Structures are given as C-alpha cells and as structure tokens.
C-alpha cells in the first residue's frame, strides 16, 4: 500500500527525517512509534503531501506520488487526522463529515445543477458515520462546541468519509479516557476488517502494541527497527532510543 524510500527532509541543519525507508502492507495496521522529535509527524506530513521532501520517494499503491500535491494524494485514497485536531469549529459536526465525501457536489458547476437529492443521500451517510463513532446526537452542534474526545472521533469519522482506503492517524489515543479508547480501537478494527489499511502514530505503547500487525520505530529521523510488536518490545536499540543512550 505505502512504500517510503530514502525519505529525507532537512530544515537548514536540522534533519527532521533522515533517509528513512519502510513499507506499510495493504490491509495491515502498522504502528509508527519513537520518542518525541523522532520525525514521526514530519513523516506523516511528507506522506500526506503537506511538505515537500528534500530527497526520497513515496509510493502509494505502487504509484510514485512524491510530486503530487496534498489534495491529489488525498483523492488517490489517503485520509489522515492531526495531532492538534484540525476540525472546522464554526461549521456543524455533520457538515464537517459531508464536505469530506468524494461525491460531495462542491464543484463550481454543481452550484446551478439540482443537488438536493444528492445532498440528502450524503446527510444520511454522514449520520450513519456519526452513529458509528457514537456522536450522532451531536450532529447539529458546531464542531467547535464538542468535547475533546468527541472532536477526535469526528476527525477520524471525517478521514473515513473521504473514502480513503489508507488512513493515517496521528496520536488518536492522546488525551482519551479508557472507554473512548476502546471505542476507537474497535472502530479501527472494524474498518480494518472492511479492508482499510491503517498507519498509526501513537505514544500509548499498550494501545499500539495490542492493535498493530507491524510496528516501525523511528529515532532522530531514521527507522531503527521494523517488526512484529513482540520483537519490537524487547529490541535493545528501541529500548535504548526510549530510555536514553549508553554512549560507548
């Protein structure tokens, strides 16, 4: 599904992502972990096209998308959420979902064609998605007025609404109570069964180890270990990365 080859991103002297390469298999749930400042979010931004890499290539479903702008990559089937939840606060929760649908008739030429029927269908689809994440009752509230947890769920639902089959989640578990966390986990697993591939950045080890088929570990911009959760947990270099270096 995703192939990252020799990805490199440098701000002046700082190597945020340092010749990093890894793959995410189709249908898998792959975790991406690493200490703060390892370059996880920058990698996310490079993959989703919000930043241009200094070097390296990114392939989605076999196609080289490195030069594609963010919106073209999104239409090719990449959905994502953000560490600092980026929902549309002054718009209703349901509208946050509706705008994400690929069939949303939002081209300029659609304005003067009858779209009432199509918009009704989308409203129904959106309500269903909101029900799936359990915030259907908040549909007509302004997204800005939702609780932190509800905003996270809304953002995940919105990523799903784009119809993307490759969804990147940036710290979905951060600041979430346990019940909500389980709700998110079940939702991810349900979608995964339906064929969606997940790539999740997370600090909550227990959550990521439990849900991931494969984990990529990054430190100082480089992937230092890739493997099954069990292998990763007792890989010396991973522990060293987290607990501090013993410089020989």
């Amino acid at each position, binding site marked *: 599904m995703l192939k990252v080859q020799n990805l490199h991103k440098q*701000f*002046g002297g700082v190597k945020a992502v340092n010749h990093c390469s890894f793959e995410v298999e189709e249908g898998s749930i792959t975790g991406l972990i690493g200490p703060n400042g390892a370059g996880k979010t920058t990698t996310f*931004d490079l993959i989703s*096209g*919000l*930043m*241009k890499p200094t070097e390296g290539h990114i392939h989605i479903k076999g196609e080289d998308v490195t030069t594609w*702008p*963010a919106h073209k990559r999104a239409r090719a089937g990449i959905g994502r959420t953000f560490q600092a939840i980026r929902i549309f606060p002054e718009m209703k929760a349901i509208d946050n979902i509706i705008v994400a649908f690929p069939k949303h008739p939002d081209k300029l030429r659609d304005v003067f064609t009858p779209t009432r029927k199509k918009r009704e269908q989308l409203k129904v689809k959106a309500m269903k998605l909101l029900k799936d994440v359990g915030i259907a009752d908040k549909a007509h509230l302004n997204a800005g007025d939702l609780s932190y947890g509800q905003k996270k769920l809304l953002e995940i639902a919105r990523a799903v609404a784009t119809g993307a089959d490759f969804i990147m989640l940036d710290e979905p578990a951060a600041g979430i109570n346990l019940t909500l966390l389980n709700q998110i986990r079940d939702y991810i697993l349900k979608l995964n069964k339906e064929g969606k591939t997940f790539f999740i950045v997370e600090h909550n080890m227990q959550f990521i180890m439990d849900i991931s088929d494969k984990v990529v570990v990054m430190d100082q911009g480089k992937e230092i270990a890739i493997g099954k959760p069990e292998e990763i947990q007792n890989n010396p270099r991973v522990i060293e990365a987290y607990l501090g270096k013993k410089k020989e």
Partner: protein
Amino acid sequence: MLEILPQIIWFSLLASAIYALVAIGLSLIFGILEFINFAQGDFAMVGAYLFFGFVIEGGLPWWIGIAMVVIVAALMGVVIERITFKPVRKSPPFIPLVISIGVGALLQAIMIFKFGGSVKSYRTEGSKAEVYKLFGDTLSVTQSQITLMFVTAGLLLGLYLFLKYSKTGTAIRAVADNQDVAAILGVSINKTIGIIFAVGTALAAVAGVMIANEQNLSITMGLSLGVKAFAAVVLGGVGSLPGAIVGAFIIGFSENFIVGLTPIPSSYKDAIVFGLLIIMLFLYPNGLFGAKAEEEARA
C-alpha cells in the same frame, strides 16, 4: 544622465531614512501585536502638529519641543492602546485593524479641529535653507537633511541597543516571540505592550517632526507615509526590525532610481513601489528576513 546620480542617491537615502523612521515604530507594534496599524502614519502626523503647536506657535525652543512631543506622543500611544486595543487583544487580528482605521480618522478629525485644515510648515519668514555644495557642485545638501540623517541613525541605533541590552528591551522581545510564555515567566504583558506602544508612537512622532521639517505638514500626511512603511516592514519580513530598515531602503531607492533614471514620470511612484512589493512577496513569501517557518500549509 550620470551627473545627477549623486543627487539621486542622496535623495534616495533621505526618502529611505524617512520610511525607516516610521517603519521601525510600525514594526515594533505590527511585529508584536500582529495587526496592521492603520493609525501609525497618523501618529507621525500628530507628532508633527504637536511640534508645530509647541515650537512654532508656542515659541518654545526646539529641543524642549522635541522632548514634549516625545512625552505627549508616548502617553498618547499608551492611552490609545489601553482604551481601544487592549479589549480586543485576544480577538482575531482584523478587529484591531478596523479599530486602528477608526483611531486614525479620529486623530485627523481632532487635528483639523485644533489646528484647522490648511497645510502648514515649520519654515518661518526668511529662514533660508543653507545649501552645501559637494562633489564639485553635483550634489547639494541642506542642514535639515543632514540633521534628519543623524537623528534617524541615532534613533535606530538607540532602539537597537535598547532592545538588545536593556531589561525592558528584552521583555519586549520576549513578548514579541511568545506572549503566553513571556507571561508565565513573570513579564507583565500589560506594561510591556504599553511600553511597546509608547516607544512605537514616540518614534513615529519624531519621524513626523523630521518629515515636516524636511517637507511640510498636512492633516493627511500620515496615510501615504503609513502605507509605504507597511510595505517596508512586510518587504523586510514581519517582526524583524533590521528587515524593516532594509525594506525602507529598498523602497526609498527603488522609488527614486526608477523615476530618476527612466522616462517614467514620478506620478507613477506608488504604482512602482507596490508593483515591486507584490513581485517581491511572490518571490519571497515570508519577506526577505521574515521567519522562515516552514509550515505544513506551505506544500
């Protein structure tokens, strides 16, 4: 055409110094409080009229006049900030922008009311400008132009030292960098912003006096000054004082060189300056010295 080059260079320096004086005050306020202060040019106008009131009408010696102008302008800056800008400090930046428009118009109205609308000048009867001839007659320079240069250089240097080394100067830079963090570290935001406004307004007022001394003073002199100063600040990169100075020189020189050395008449000055600005911003979206923050929005 070449023999007029020294003269054009000198005029460009003069124009740049004037823009720099206004741009510095603007950059202080603009860079820190992140809103385009439409009243900045009018602060300069008020400074010019205060000096006119104190010295030309009031008969005070000029150096007392200048001191009075700085004090009154600084007070005015703090009062305006407290009354109009403090309540909206947390709201989106276009709100103080609109308020600054109102403040500018208000200052103009007060000045018309106090001094009348007719255009005035500091030159009293028979004060003839002493002209010095340099470089074998190709360059003529006057006393007031020289004083303007020295005062500008002195103010810029003074401001630089004040910001770099004095306690309040560092506090101002801290607030400029991040208001919330500065607050946590015990910097009184209110006091610092008050000082920023006082310094910014006083600088503009002195600039106004210098400009009026060099040219003349009218109720609406503030507007085109303020706009050119904006252009300088943005060209140099928001929030960077050296940037504002460089921006001022770019505008001062481009204006005079293009008009001076080409058949284009000087009534195209505004079109040239802003055409240049839009092109420069297209090439350097952050301004020349602006913070090079690479944002995800950029891609």
